C-alpha cells in the first residue's frame, strides 16, 4: 500500500496526470453522451469538469498541479479562435447575402445577453468585479477572459461563467426554442443555431452541430461574430460609462 501511495504522489505531481485525466475523462464522457443519445443533461464538458474538480478536491491535488498538464489542452483555445475564421469563410456567400439581419441580430442578442447579466448582477448586489466578469459570459472562454481583464473583472471567474453559460444554453436551448415556437424548418434551425452561437458560444455551437448541420453552421457564424463584436464593444461601453 505505501508503495502505491508513493507512486500516486509521483504521478499526481507530473504534467502527465493533468493531461491524461482531461483527455481520458472527456473521451469517456463523450462516449457516454453518445450512448445516451446525446441527451442535453449528459453534456460531456459538464461531467468532465465535475469529475475532475471532485477528484482533485477529494485527493487534495492543487489546481496549479492539474493545470501544469491541462495547459497543453488549454493552449489550443488560441489557435481554435483563429480557426473560427474557417466556418465564417465557408459561409461567406450567405453572410454577404444576409449580412444586415445577421449582424443586427448578433448585436441585439449580444447586447441583451451582456446587458441582462450586468443588470441582474447589480440587482442581486453581487460584488462589482463579479458583475463585470458576468457581462462577458456569452463570449467564448479565452476571449471572455481577455475582455473581462480589460474591464476590471476576474479572468478565471469570467472563464468559468462562460463555460457555465455554454452548458446552460446547450442544456436548455431546445426547450426554450420549443416554448417560443421557433420552428424546425431550415429558417427555424438557422434562428436556433444562431441564437445558441450568440448566447452560448462554443459549447452551444458544439451542441447545435450535433443536432442539425444548418444550426451548427449558423452557430459557428454567430460565435465568430460575437467574438469580434464583444471584444470591440464591451470595453468601449465600459469606457464610456
Amino acid at each position, binding site marked *: 500500500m505505501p508503495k502505491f501511495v508513493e507512486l500516486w504522489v509521483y504521478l499526481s505531481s507530473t504534467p502527465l496526470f493533468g493531461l491524461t485525466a*482531461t483527455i481520458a475523462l472527456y473521451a469517456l464522457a463523450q462516449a457516454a453522451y453518445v450512448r445516451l443519445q446525446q441527451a442535453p443533461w449528459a453534456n460531456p464538458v459538464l461531467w468532465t*469538469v465535475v469529475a*475532475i474538480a471532485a477528484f482533485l478536491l477529494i485527493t487534495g491535488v492543487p489546481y496549479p498541479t492539474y493545470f501544469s498538464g491541462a495547459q497543453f489542452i488549454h493552449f489550443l483555445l488560441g489557435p481554435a479562435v483563429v480557426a473560427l475564421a474557417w466556418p465564417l469563410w465557408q459561409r461567406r456567400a450567405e453572410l454577404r447575402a444576409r449580412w444586415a439581419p445577421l449582424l443586427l441580430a448578433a448585436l441585439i442578442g449580444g447586447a441583451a445577453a451582456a446587458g441582462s447579466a450586468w443588470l441582474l448582477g447589480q440587482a442581486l448586489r453581487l460584488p462589482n468585479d463579479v458583475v463585470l466578469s458576468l457581462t462577458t459570459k456569452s463570449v467564448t472562454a479565452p476571449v471572455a477572459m481577455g475582455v473581462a481583464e480589460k474591464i476590471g473583472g476576474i479572468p478565471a471567474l469570467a472563464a468559468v461563467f462562460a463555460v457555465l453559460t455554454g452548458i*446552460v444554453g446547450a442544456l*436548455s436551448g431546445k426547450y426554450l426554442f420549443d416554448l417560443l415556437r421557433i420552428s424546425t424548418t431550415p429558417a427555424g434551425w438557422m434562428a436556433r443555431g444562431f441564437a445558441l452561437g450568440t448566447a452560448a458560444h462554443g459549447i452551444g455551437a458544439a451542441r447545435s452541430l450535433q443536432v442539425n448541420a444548418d444550426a451548427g453552421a449558423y452557430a459557428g457564424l454567430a460565435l465568430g461574430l460575437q467574438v469580434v463584436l464583444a471584444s470591440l464593444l464591451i470595453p468601449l461601453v465600459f469606457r464610456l460609462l
Partner: protein
Amino acid sequence: MQALRGFAWLLVLQSAGELASRGLHLPFPGPVVGLVLLLIALNVPLVREPVGACADFLLSHLSLLFVPVGVGVMTHLDLVGEYGGRMLLVIVLSTWIGLAVTALALRALMKHHRKE
C-alpha cells in the same frame, strides 16, 4: 501532413495577431486579430487547403478545450459558497434572455429581409 501545415498557419497567424494587438494597442485580443487575418489569408489556396483540414479537427473537439478553465471553478469555492446561488441565477436568466432575444430578433429580421 496537411493538418500539421494547417496548424502551423494557425499558430503563425495567432502570433501575428498577438504582435499586432500588443504593438498597436488594438482593443481585440490577439487570437481575434488572428481570426481576421486568417479570413483574408483563406483567399490563398496555399493557406486554405491545410487550414481547412486542421480547423475541422480542432473545432469538432472545441468543447474539450474548455475543460481546464472549467475545472478552475474549484479555486473560487469561497466566492461560489457566498454568491453561488445568485451567480447561477444571473447566468441562467441572462442566458435564456440572450437566446430568446437573438432567436426572435433574427426570425423577425429575416421575415422583413425576405419581403424586400
